[in-house]
């Protein structure tokens, strides 16, 4: 039997949740910051959709290069990869953070407008 209350540290993962309409579709955006990754989920369809992984390549302090790949879902949608690429570059340039990004996009359309709106909503509410 333990004496006294167990001290629980504050929840270590911070997150932000917002909901906004994009081109008439209700979009839920969730941004979560873990110790060694960022997770961004943007969904209009009720599921997480396609999941991408983006990371900065090691060892190149100036002009870094990035690696973006789809780890689950549609592999032939370049706009989704472009979205991940924009976010990881912003993450790296604005905060210098080298944490990889897991981006999950469940969208009704993959138009430039929608993806730009998502990128700007995530950047406005970023946790980095």
């Amino acid at each position, binding site marked *: 039997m333990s004496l006294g209350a*167990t001290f*629980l*540290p*504050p*929840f*270590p*993962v911070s*997150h932000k*949740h917002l*909901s906004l309409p994009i081109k008439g579709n*209700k979009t*839920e955006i*969730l941004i*979560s910051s*873990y*110790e*060694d*990754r960022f*997770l961004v*989920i943007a*969904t209009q369809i*009720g*599921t*997480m959709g396609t*999941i991408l*992984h983006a990371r900065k390549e090691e060892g190149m302090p100036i002009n870094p290069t990035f690696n973006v790949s789809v*780890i*689950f879902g549609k592999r032939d949608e370049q706009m989704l990869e472009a979205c991940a690429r924009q976010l990881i570059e912003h993450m790296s340039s604005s905060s210098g953070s080298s944490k990889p990004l*897991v981006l999950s996009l469940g969208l009704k359309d993959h138009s430039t407008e929608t993806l730009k709106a998502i990128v700007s909503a995530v950047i406005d509410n970023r946790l980095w």
Partner: protein
Amino acid sequence: MDSKKLEEEIKDFRLREEAASTSQSRREDHGAEHDAELQITCFSEVLNDVTFHFQIIRFPKQIYVWIGCNSAKFGHMYAAAPTRPNNMVSATSILGGSSDNTGSGIARRLVLKTGLNIILACSIPKNNPMLEADAEKLLIQKLISLGYTKSRREGKSL
């Protein structure tokens, strides 16, 4: 003009219906957010001197779960889903390589319990079945209390 308004009202009604059927009273350490579309639950528990952190995000047709073990590391990611025609579950590792499949068993059993697609991220160290079992036990308890698990009656169809 009328049909559009009617459509919107029907949509509103459906959302309210969905929210009413899934909402229950919840008290978490760090608050649960309610939304017709997305429900986020974060909590931590200590069991056998190990602190587990859980983040559960309930989408309408999917559940995302993160399990942290004494840390906030993201860990490996697994996807699992029910597969027709028979009630089989398929699970795969999508991030972190497949040599360490701590967590794929949990993902699999979550699909069986909830009937939904599961994305699980878990940083439980490998070769430690006790930790896995403890984490799963806490998680299942919470899922049952949140009402995300299927009732026995519905257990036949996946």
